């Protein structure tokens, strides 16, 4: 029942937040999401004892047979923890900011958390699909209604493109699920694992799944919605999108796509892994050219997840482990980076890198926090991303040396665009726009402290992550290579 509590608590929290009204909404949302984090830590303890967090299964719809089935192994639980950890941080990051209609805003954020946790714990394919789509609705409205850009028309178009693009991908996944149901007579994940499909069926179905996941992640060439959406959404929305939501796609690859279509994956793998690696290079090069801070971070995120996807498609245990560590690391780092961008925007009103400069002289605390986040993003040893990227590259290396070499460029290119961005925004001469840049407030500082603590704890001592995720990943790899 613990898992049911973890799943439904955010939904209750969303309703409560809406009920208490605009004034208290932020505080209530923060408090409740912090409680949710504590509950999920209890689940972690359970996992250590029993190897699996409580399962729950209940008949939801009799014909076709659909179960309300949820369960969490190590992989799911880590994703849930990432969600429950980041949501309070993200809520805290909006502290002290004027938000119109705050009760709706915060309850949408919590509703989003509900859907995300649902995606990570569902073991019935249909339930997974429902949560997958449900996550789209709150983020659509968050991005649409609370976006900061003045140009409303462009925002509507960009956010709408995002919605239709992801919906289109998901619908193909739905058709694939229905097809699987007609073969297996059930949506339960274990029944789907046990299916014996012909190679060509597997290829087609895997392609349909890939379409849905690749758009969400995004993998080249399905990324065109990403930069504009990240830019137009309010930063809280961008953090939810980049920090947690794109992990849905990566998680989907690991949990649903690889083990259900083992032969299809092996047949398609050269294409999939190449696309992922192209994304790494392509994203990095565009990031170097970007003049807009938020877009730069969007493209860097695109490059990073390309590497994670490549690690997953390498079908090695190192690749899998690296993917999990890097999913967590990327979630934390990207939230930190977007938060730094948000602070700059709050004080200067612009994301244009060329208009900034000399902030370090005025705000030393902010400069220190920002550089730590930047260093984590470029995978400096002792930060969380280092372990992840190392393992991912190792996994890719086992698959193919050349691909690994190309993918390895990400570290160099990442350092180029991140450090260049830091240099141009924080160092140099103070100008009229950055003059009067106030240093961090207490709530802002606490967000950074929490994130930076997470960065270094995971970077120095990542062993628990491997222990938690290990058995689940072994299982997935074994099923995939059966």
């Amino acid at each position, binding site marked *: 029942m613990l898992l049911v509590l973890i799943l439904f608590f955010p939904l209750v929290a969303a309703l409560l937040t809406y009920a208490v009204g605009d004034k208290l909404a932020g505080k209530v949302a923060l408090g409740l999401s912090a409680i949710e984090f504590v509950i999920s830590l209890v689940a972690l303890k359970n996992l250590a004892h029993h190897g699996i967090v409580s399962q729950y299964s209940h008949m939801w*719809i009799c*014909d076709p047979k659909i179960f309300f089935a949820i369960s969490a192994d190590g992989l799911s639980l880590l994703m849930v923890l990432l969600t429950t950890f980041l949501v309070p941080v993200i809520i805290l990051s909006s502290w002290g900011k004027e938000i119109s209609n705050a009760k709706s805003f915060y309850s949408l954020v919590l509703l989003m958390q509900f859907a995300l946790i649902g995606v990570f714990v569902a073991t019935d394919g249909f339930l997974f699909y*429902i949560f997958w*789509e*449900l996550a789209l*609705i709150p983020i659509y*409205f968050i991005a*649409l209604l609370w976006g900061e850009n003045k140009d409303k028309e462009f925002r509507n178009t960009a956010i*709408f493109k995002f919605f239709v693009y992801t919906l289109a991908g998901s619908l193909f996944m739905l058709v694939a699920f229905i097809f699987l*149901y007609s073969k297996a007579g059930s949506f339960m994940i274990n029944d789907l694992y046990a299916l014996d499909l012909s190679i060509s069926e597997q290829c087609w179905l895997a392609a349909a799944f890939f379409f849905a996941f690749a758009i969400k992640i995004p993998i080249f060439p399905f990324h065109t919605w990403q930069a504009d959406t990240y830019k137009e959404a309010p930063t809280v929305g961008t953090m939810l999108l980049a920090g947690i939501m794109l992990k849905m796609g990566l998680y989907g690859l690991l949990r649903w796509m690889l083990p259900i279509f083992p032969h299809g994956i092996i047949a398609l793998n050269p294409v999939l892994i190449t696309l992922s690696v192209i994304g790494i290079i392509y994203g990095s090069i565009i990031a170097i050219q970007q003049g807009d801070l938020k877009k730069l971070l969007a493209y860097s995120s695109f490059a990073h997840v390309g590497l994670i996807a490549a690690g997953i498609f390498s079908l090695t245990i190192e690749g899998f482990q690296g993917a999990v560590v890097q999913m967590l690391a990327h979630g934390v780092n990207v939230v930190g980076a977007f938060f730094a961008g948000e602070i700059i925007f709050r004080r200067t009103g612009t994301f244009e890198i060329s208009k900034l400069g000399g902030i370090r002289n005025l705000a030393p605390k902010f400069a220190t926090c920002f550089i730590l986040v930047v260093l984590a993003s470029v995978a400096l040893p002792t930060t969380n991303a280092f372990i992840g990227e190392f393992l991912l590259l190792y996994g890719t290396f086992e698959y193919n040396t050349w691909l690994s070499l190309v993918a390895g460029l990400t570290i160099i290119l990442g350092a180029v665009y991140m450090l260049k961005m830091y240099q141009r925004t924080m160092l140099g001469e103070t100008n009229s726009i950055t003059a009067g840049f106030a240093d961090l407030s207490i709530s802002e500082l606490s967000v950074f402290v929490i994130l930076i603590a997470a960065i270094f704890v995971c970077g120095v001592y990542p062993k628990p992550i491997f222990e938690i995720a290990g058995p689940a990943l072994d299982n997935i790899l074994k099923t995939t290579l059966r």
Partner: protein
Amino acid sequence: MKALTYTSFLGIACLVLEIFNLRKVAVPFVLLSLAAIFGLNLTEWNTNQIYYHDMLRGDNFAIAFTGLLIIIAFLLVCLSGNFFQSEETKLADYIAIIIFTLCGAIAMVSFSNMTVFFIGLEVLSISLYILAGSKKTDIRSNEAAMKYFLMGSFASGILLFGITLVYGASGSFNLSEIATYATSGKVDAIFQVGVVLILIAMLFKVSAVPFHFWAPDVYEGSPTLITAMMATIAKVAALAAFYRLFSTCFINSFHVFAWVLSFVAILTMLLGNLTALNQDSFKRMLAFSGIAHAGYMLLAIITLYGNKANSLFFYATAYSFASIGAFAIAMIVMRNMKSEKIEAFNGLGKKSPLLAFTLTVLMLSMAGIPPMAGFFGKYYVFLDAIRNHHLALVLVAVVTSVISVYFYFKVILAMWTKDSDEATFSADMPYTIVSLICLAVTILLGLSPSLISSLF
């Protein structure tokens, strides 16, 4: 099928109320009676009775669709009190005609004899011709009525011709006797011609492409309440009758014409959704989206091959509630803004968040986004289609569903992101209540589709 008898009496009772000048009680009286008839209808569940020398059959299919039609009529009558304010002296007449429409629809879902089918269809159509022209001073309403009448009578003629040919070949109007003849192996060519003519007439009634040209003009010109009726009662009854015919007596011919019907369904889904993209008028957009929805329901009929009609029933229910709710809110907005354009919805999110939220959910349901009822409607249809190896049709349906998101979201965008200058906004109680009922049903069926997903 006592429901048919009692609704007929109810219609006559309405006219009597008019004679005794009891107009004021007409709406509550009819609502109470409809509720009673609904209950009575439910008691016949699983009895499978045959009425009037096998003219009507009270099988579960008939009972379920009758129940749905009664609920739809109930909601429409709720709205009619306010809608016909300007025509108060004729209120009871209009309500009587609405009830007669319901009679025709009930006959169309429960017939087991071709004559009853034809009479039902005519009662439904003639009532709608009158209602379409019920705004007597509005030239567009007149035009709609005239257009609907001319086109509809052609279709009725074709249908009658078809029934005659089938009678000529099989020697009977009775569905089971026709079915015996159709499976006997010695099927005359004129039988097939008759089936084709009936098919054409039915496709006309459900406004499938290429027999859809009347629908947008008639929908746009008619008073909004009547448009809601055409989009729900008439469409649902016609599709149910379609299924009833082609799952019993014409099932063999069905194999011959399946590819034609598949083609029609594809065209209907594509053209309905693509044309809806460019509409400025909310009513016209809903007309085209209604055409597209008819396409999805046709897909259900094609892929069922006479199997149980659960997916059709679910889709029809989800679609009807979403439509009625949307039309109810549209009536409020059109009254306030004096415009039928989608722009009239601008700023509704600020003026009335509750209504805007309701319409958002209903639009999401029509677009087929989980966890609303409309999603499960599409889902059941797709599931049946894939089970029966119609993958290509499903792929077309999926692509067109994605297209449809665009125009449903146009309304959502208008409500939430645009501002309007108009400050005053008032919503009449009945409209709000009806839209909230539709909202509740849409969400309830989305969360617990099992309630009605395996009735048969």
